[in-house]
């Protein structure tokens, strides 16, 4: 709304005749005032009577519109990362012959705690049992079969928080115990009797009265146990070691001890490459590395409102490659990390900084890279290294098959640029 505001100064000098005129006006303007009032009220009413009706399309006025451009990603590098697999929320154990992603076998390592003070004693008649908690529904592989496992002693030192896929673990040949996942109870627990030399050693050390000696010997002479899948197993289970317990079972009472460390490793069969496809696992055997900085420099000269990186998944091949009763665990999405990172495995596995999530939708993963490109183009802050990888998912093993940059255009990795196509720019 606009309003005029100005002041006009009128010369106040007047002659006598004009004053008389004004006096005359004073009399006659009483009637005029009433007319003004009448007019103003009428005018006001006429405006108040306005009201909205329907709207009118104005399609002959050319307005700006949203334009969609595609920039294909021609260069994708693949790098291999050695992931951290220790002390995750879920630890894999088992093996599965995945028709698409190849055979995968996982061994679980754990080391029970020992009593820190000499208040308890393991008596002769007492026995040891591992109460292993398994996730009931999360199964990678054949849901109709059972998986069997053997337990062996570990021969070398390892450390969960720094445990990587490449960490070497040697196992003894003595079978300490074994179980089948068919023995899982209604609480999701499997009870595994532990015996052999480990029983003898643990019992001996447990009963050492001197705390320091007990703990030192346990740390230096015992390296925990490994749960190894038997060859007959065709599925991978996931255990929550933080809720699993070592039970010391007596005649009348049972003591339980938690796990002081755990990890798992995987052995994956190398499969032949599939043309125009990328096989990606959330254990980072292959991670995509993109040069987004160069892509940003190739963008069309427009006012873009959204730039998204799109990866297409070959859902057909993924869904049809499994037999009946076989299943894979869904990877909840992909992540992009952008920056200069000292430890890529840590960044990919545990960091929440410099992350852009690529949520899955209808067989594709879309990453909003608008802010990154805005920063590069409008804030003189060039995009750094960009990596894309499947979400770690707390230890659950998952894989995806994506179309590569050699795939047909509608499936190729690409940047989708939504920009305002202004009339002034046409």
């Amino acid at each position: 709304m606009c309003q005029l505001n100005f002041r006009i100064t009128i010369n106040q000098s007047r002659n006598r005749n004009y004053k008389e005129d004004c006096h005359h006006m004073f009399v006659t303007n009483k009637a005029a005032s009433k007319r003004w009032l009448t007019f103003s009220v009428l005018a006001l009413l006429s405006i108040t009577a306005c009201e909205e009706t329907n709207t009118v399309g104005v399609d002959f006025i050319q307005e700006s519109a949203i334009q969609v451009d595609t920039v294909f990603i021609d260069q994708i590098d693949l790098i291999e990362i050695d992931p951290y697999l220790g002390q995750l929320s879920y630890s894999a154990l088992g093996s599965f012959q995945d028709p698409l992603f190849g055979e995968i076998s996982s061994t679980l390592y754990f080391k029970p705690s020992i009593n820190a003070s000499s208040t308890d004693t393991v008596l002769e008649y007492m026995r040891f049992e591992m109460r292993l908690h398994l996730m009931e529904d999360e199964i990678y592989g054949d849901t109709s079969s059972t998986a069997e496992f053997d337990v062996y002693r570990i021969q070398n030192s390892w450390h969960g928080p720094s445990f990587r896929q490449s960490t070497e673990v040697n196992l003894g040949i003595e079978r300490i115990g074994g179980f089948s996942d068919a023995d899982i109870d209604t609480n999701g627990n499997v009870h595994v009797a532990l015996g052999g030399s480990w029983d003898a050693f643990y019992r001996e050390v447990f009963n050492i009265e001197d705390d320091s000696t007990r703990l030192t010997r346990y740390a230096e002479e015992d390296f925990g146990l490994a749960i190894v899948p038997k060859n007959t197993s065709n599925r991978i289970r996931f255990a929550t070691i933080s809720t699993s317990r070592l039970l010391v079972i007596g005649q009348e009472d049972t003591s339980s001890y938690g796990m002081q460390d755990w990890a798992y490793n995987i052995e994956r069969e190398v499969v032949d490459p599939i043309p125009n496809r990328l096989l990606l696992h959330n254990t980072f055997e292959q991670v995509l590395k993109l040069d987004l900085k160069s892509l940003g420099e190739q963008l069309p000269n427009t006012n873009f409102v959204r730039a998204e990186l799109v990866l297409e998944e070959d859902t057909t091949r993924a869904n049809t490659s499994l037999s009946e009763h076989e299943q894979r665990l869904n990877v909840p999405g992909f992540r992009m990390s952008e920056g200069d990172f000292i430890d890529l495995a840590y960044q990919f596995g545990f960091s929440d900084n410099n992350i852009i999530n690529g949520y899955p939708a209808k067989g594709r993963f879309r990453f909003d890279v608008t802010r990154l490109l805005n920063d590069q183009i409008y804030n003189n802050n060039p995009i750094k290294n960009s990596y894309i990888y499947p979400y770690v998912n707390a230890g659950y093993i998952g894989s995806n098959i994506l179309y590569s940059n050699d795939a047909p255009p509608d499936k190729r990795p690409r940047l989708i640029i939504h920009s305002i196509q202004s009339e002034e720019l046409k």
Partner: protein
Amino acid sequence: MLDILLNSCTLPRAASNKTALLALLIFLLSSPLLLAQIQSSNLYSSGSIYSAYGIGYPVEMETGSAKSHGIFGVTSVNQEVAGLTNPAFWSQTYYAQGASGIGLHSIQLKNTSSSGESALFEKGYLQLLFPLKSSELGVSVGLYPVTRSNLKIINEEQFLSYGDTVRYNSELQQMGGLNKFEIGFGWKLNDQISIGYAPSVAFFSMEKSEAFSFSSSLYSQQKQKLTLSGAAFSQRLGVAGSFRNVFKTQDKISVGATINVPFSMTLRQDFTTEKEIESGSKTVDLSNILTSKKGEMSLPLEYAAGIGYAPHTRFNVSIEGQYQQWSDYSNDLVDNDGAVMADRMRIGLGAQFHPYKKAQSGFFSSFKYSAGLSYDSGHLTIQEEEIRTLWLHTGLGILSRSPSSIDVSVRYGFRGTTESNLIEENIWAIGLSVNLAEIMFLRPKLQ
């Protein structure tokens, strides 16, 4: 506006006009509020849709008195206000005058399938007129719009994103136009002929903003703004003739003509938007994506002429014509959006009755009555359709025995067509002009 009214009378009159002032104050203050309600949710609102083209729709600069009987102010017969249109009339001023006007347009619009309303409250001209030599040489200082674009269009569109329909609203708001600040003079050559010259600074300022909002949360709201500005020297000339006792005693013929010299202006445009970056939101200059940042605008030749006849002081009739050569208009920066600029012809015919000039009593004898008709061929041809306007004019003049006056004009216009899916506008236009006049220099009477 209140200031004008407060200063327009001496103290006794100011006291007497309290009721009138109060009424007018209510009227003026209420208008914007009411209009705000009207405009709140229109798909298209604020002024004529045809002001979207070029640099806006040409604005009439005539006084309220001229506007109320369909003429443009090229001639002046029985008129109390010199006006801006013809600089030659500035020579005839005896009083120091201040004049201004405001207008309210209520537009009912329709195409072949729907209808709607829009409204516009617009400020008009401002003129100060000083007699350097009474009734012989006058100087005018004026500030007035030449073209005006004032509209808002909300457009609903959609696009497909992987099979999902993403709807978005784009709100286009375009405001501004060409204005002139003018200092000119009128000089009376002899009892019949006057001439005038008005150089001015023409300055152009227009802002076109577009805001986009999306139905999907994946897309954040966007706003971009294009501003255009420029200034140039322009000039116009006027000539007027006044002849008394032509056909009979006390009759009067007034003729006049004006010419606006074409001129060019260098325009500069800037394009900005808001961008989300790491540290928050930032206004960024996107002018580099414009095809050009500077460009030339050429405004066309314009001339007008008219004749008015008053058989006596209480009645006058006038006919005037105006021609604007818009086909010569060019603009490197502002696209015409598919419209073709066409030469514009305006013809106006009207009459006025001044019963108050004869001593008689009665309510209806206190006003000046005006009526007229005007035709405007328009300056736009869109999809091969000329955007013409036919106006019916009427108005009331509220006068006092002093030279000050108020003119209320009411017009009804038919603009455009529904052919080719264009829009026809039926316009109610109410104008209010205030002319304040006082003797500027008073010679002391001889004792």
